[in-house]
């Protein structure tokens, strides 16, 4: 992918090459986007828009960062713009149907007591504010290094570390409230 910057202008079969890019990065981007928007249909739509954006930005990719970093940065910015938009703040309601199944109408407390810690954790992470959720997702789900996260988010490493610590603290608080077993 790193050679892409040099040859994208010259490539005649752009659509084939782009299909390869989608095959390589589609699944991870869809997950990434979902971690921001927490809604399946919206995640799918935004991922499509992100790829369209990527297609028309490929000529600008200069190989300064890894291709993956570059493409993720586009995706994350797109998600954040979306979350900031008026429409999101006022219209979209996020639901939890996929965590507990569609027929679950019990109160959150009841459900949480019944579910395993794993699901509790997922729920707690997804409920974190975006600044903390993204760090947790990138570090523990995608298993990126601090350095990579810093480069993708364009935030310095110390800030990332501070946020990660804070995020874990928040999760622990939730855990205590929900009577998790102590570590």
């Amino acid at each position, binding site marked *: 992918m790193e050679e892409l910057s040099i040859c994208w202008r010259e490539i005649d079969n752009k659509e084939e090459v*782009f299909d390869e890019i*989608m095959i390589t990065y*589609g699944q991870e981007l869809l997950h990434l986007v979902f971690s921001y928007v927490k809604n399946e249909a919206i995640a799918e739509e935004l991922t499509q828009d992100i790829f369209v954006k990527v297609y028309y930005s490929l000529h600008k990719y200069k190989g300064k960062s890894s291709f993956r970093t570059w493409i993720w940065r586009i995706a994350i910015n797109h998600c954040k713009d979306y979350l900031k938009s008026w429409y999101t703040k006022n219209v979209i309601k996020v639901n939890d149907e*996929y*965590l507990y199944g569609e027929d679950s109408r019990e109160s959150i407390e009841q459900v949480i007591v019944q579910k395993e810690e794993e699901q509790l954790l997922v729920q707690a992470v997804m409920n974190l504010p975006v600044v903390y959720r993204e760090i947790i997702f990138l570090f523990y789900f995608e298993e990126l290094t601090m350095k990579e996260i810093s480069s993708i988010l364009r935030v310095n490493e110390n800030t990332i570390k501070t946020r990660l610590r804070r995020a874990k603290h928040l999760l622990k608080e939730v855990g205590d409230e929900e009577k998790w077993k102590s570590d």
Partner: protein
Amino acid sequence: MEKRLKNLQPGLKKTYFDHLPFTAEHRKEIMKKIQIKNKEEEILLAALQLLHNRKTGFELTELLRARGFQKFENQEGFIYTFLHRLEQKNIIVSEWENNKIKYYQIDRKGKKLEKKLETEGGRSKNIRELIDWVYVNE
């Protein structure tokens, strides 16, 4: 907490991500969106951006092609109709060099149009009409 967070990956995979595959259907949908987008207003905007520095029609066609816009490739000469019409609307200006090479460059009105296209796309009626007129084939 550290130990517990090791469960995030399997946890997410079993819950949310279980319902979230990226499929061939998605890829097809994206290609369709790209093809639709690969159209008039996008090309117009790209052309305006490129014309911040003066260019010949040939150079412009090449640069648009590099960005993935292939509209002008199959219709040779159409780029000149396109540029001529933009010039008539005072969106771009042209100058001859040594009576041989004609260069095109964006004008003040073009910069305004560019801003508008960037912020709101081709949704306004005026822009829609302009685009229709600029692209009419004859």
